[in-house]
């Protein structure tokens, strides 16, 4: 069975982003970029399913300008077999991303799409659910455990109240949470090998998708700054301040 893994190029998770002085957007000039951490977990899971003999091929796809080929190469170095870049000026909004992915799913016919639960830039947490709806596939979101058997996948989801287990018929969409696995690092030989793995480039037009986003970004502002606090010297001073100054005890 084939597995499709969409990976997004985002700001490195260690970087604290700054807002541009004209408040038009955040400033990404010279900022370190990386694969969305949740997508790394998705790639790892797909590669493990291949190593276990369950998957036959792992295809990674990224949508964005040419620079996202870097993240596709990273995924190839981690063990994916081939890559597809869908060339768009900027990373598409979630609905457009889902439409492009739907077209790719129809072309490639994977039994499983494994993707991140959330991009750490937009914090949208939507694309997987949207893709599942467009295909009328079942979905397992926020997944921390999964096992594939025959034509089904059993998944455990991290939900607000605890854990929920569902069984989905394949084909299905799975979005992964942090505790599903610990992604491996790419070895140097694998990084070299990845350079020779196939990487196709497609346009939205090739996929018959017209992008049209009705949401506009009006402004981006920094969050409210917190007033600088004080250090207290002892527990008694802390309790006193909480009682008499902050009045929260």
């Amino acid at each position, binding site marked *: 069975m084939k597995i499709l893994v969409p990976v997004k190029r985002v700001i490195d998770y260690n970087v*604290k982003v700054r807002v541009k002085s004209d408040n038009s957007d*955040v400033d990404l000039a010279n900022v370190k970029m990386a694969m969305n951490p949740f997508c790394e977990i998705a790639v790892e899971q797909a590669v493990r399913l291949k190593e276990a003999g369950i998957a036959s091929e792992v295809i990674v796809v990224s949508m964005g300008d040419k620079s996202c080929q870097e993240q596709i190469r990273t995924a190839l170095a981690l063990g994916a077999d081939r890559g597809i870049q869908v060339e768009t000026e900027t990373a598409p909004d979630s609905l457009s991303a889902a439409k492009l992915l739907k077209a790719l799913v129809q072309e490639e016919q994977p039994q499983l799409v494994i993707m991140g639960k959330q991009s750490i830039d937009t914090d949208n947490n939507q694309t997987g659910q949207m893709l599942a709806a467009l295909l009328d596939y079942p*979905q397992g979101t926020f997944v921390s455990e999964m096992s594939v058997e025959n034509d089904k996948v059993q998944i455990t989801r991290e939900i607000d109240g605890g854990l929920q287990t569902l069984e989905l018929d394949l084909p299905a969409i799975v979005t992964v949470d942090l505790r599903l696995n610990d992604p491996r690092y790419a070895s140097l030989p694998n990084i070299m090998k990845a350079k020779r793995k196939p990487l196709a480039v497609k346009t939205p037009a090739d996929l018959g998708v017209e992008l049209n986003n009705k949401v506009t970004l009006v402004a981006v502002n920094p969050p409210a700054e917190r007033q600088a606090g004080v250090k207290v010297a002892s527990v008694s001073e802390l309790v006193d301040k909480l009682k008499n100054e902050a009045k929260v005890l």
Partner: protein
Amino acid sequence: MTILVIAEHDNVALKSATLNTLAAAQQIGGDIELLVAGYNCQAVADAAAAIPAVTKVLLADNAAYEHELAENMSKLIVALVSGHSHILAPATTNGKNYLPRVAALLDVNQLSDVTAVESADTFQRPIYAGNAIATVKTDDVVKLLTIRGTAFDAVVAEGGSAAIEAVSEVCDNSNVRFVKEELAKSDRPELTTASVVVAGGRGMGNTENFDMLYGLADKMGAAVGASRAAVDAGFVPNDLQVGQTGKVVAPDLYIAVGISGAIQHLAGMKDSKVIVAINKDEEAPIFSVADYGLVADLFEALPELSAQI
């Protein structure tokens, strides 16, 4: 303008996230219909009807909705969308699960985790783990929003008497099946609505040491939270995680113990009214958001704190 709000509940009780979501709907303005979709959930519908902000309760009571599977919920909501300008759901794992499906079926985008209403089409939401606040305008025909509960004060829950209208639509996808649920049971207040939260991180060291935090929490009537590192290490269950990818809390008092203050953690708690940090590393980033910082070994400070409260 009529707004459809989706209720958060467990078939027995209406969850308070519903009340925060209704507050956001009120700020948009217009009539508000509240959908209760579940199984054997008449009690939830009755509670919903008592909320003065609600014009009408729609009750879809069917086994197909017992576990609120996204596949079934989304089709039900799409069947009810006609005549509604906005659809709002709480930004809980539940709302985040089904609402994007509704959006895709309606061919519109969704605004996630909305924290402020500027007008009927313009909203604010945090991006980049809350390090920036985006103001976004949507021209979609139906506007779909998930609402961050901590950003809106709950509406009054009692005193109304809205009509309850039964919905007969049954959407039951056969390609997904509920297997089981392991829900955390706790007598402590709910993490996202508690007025005091004591949270522990990797510095707590192990599960047993967390008992100190539970003890303190019980003395203070507080909820217990945790960093991702504490959950990953297995000290506490996943439902305690606070942060960009966990729960967002904004209590009157947040006490962070043995938590370094990574941006992903701050994203979930930096809107708390008063923040206390106890950490032995005076350089820990958590101190940059703390109103009161105590540089100390938590194993000495925690017992002392418990004794003095």
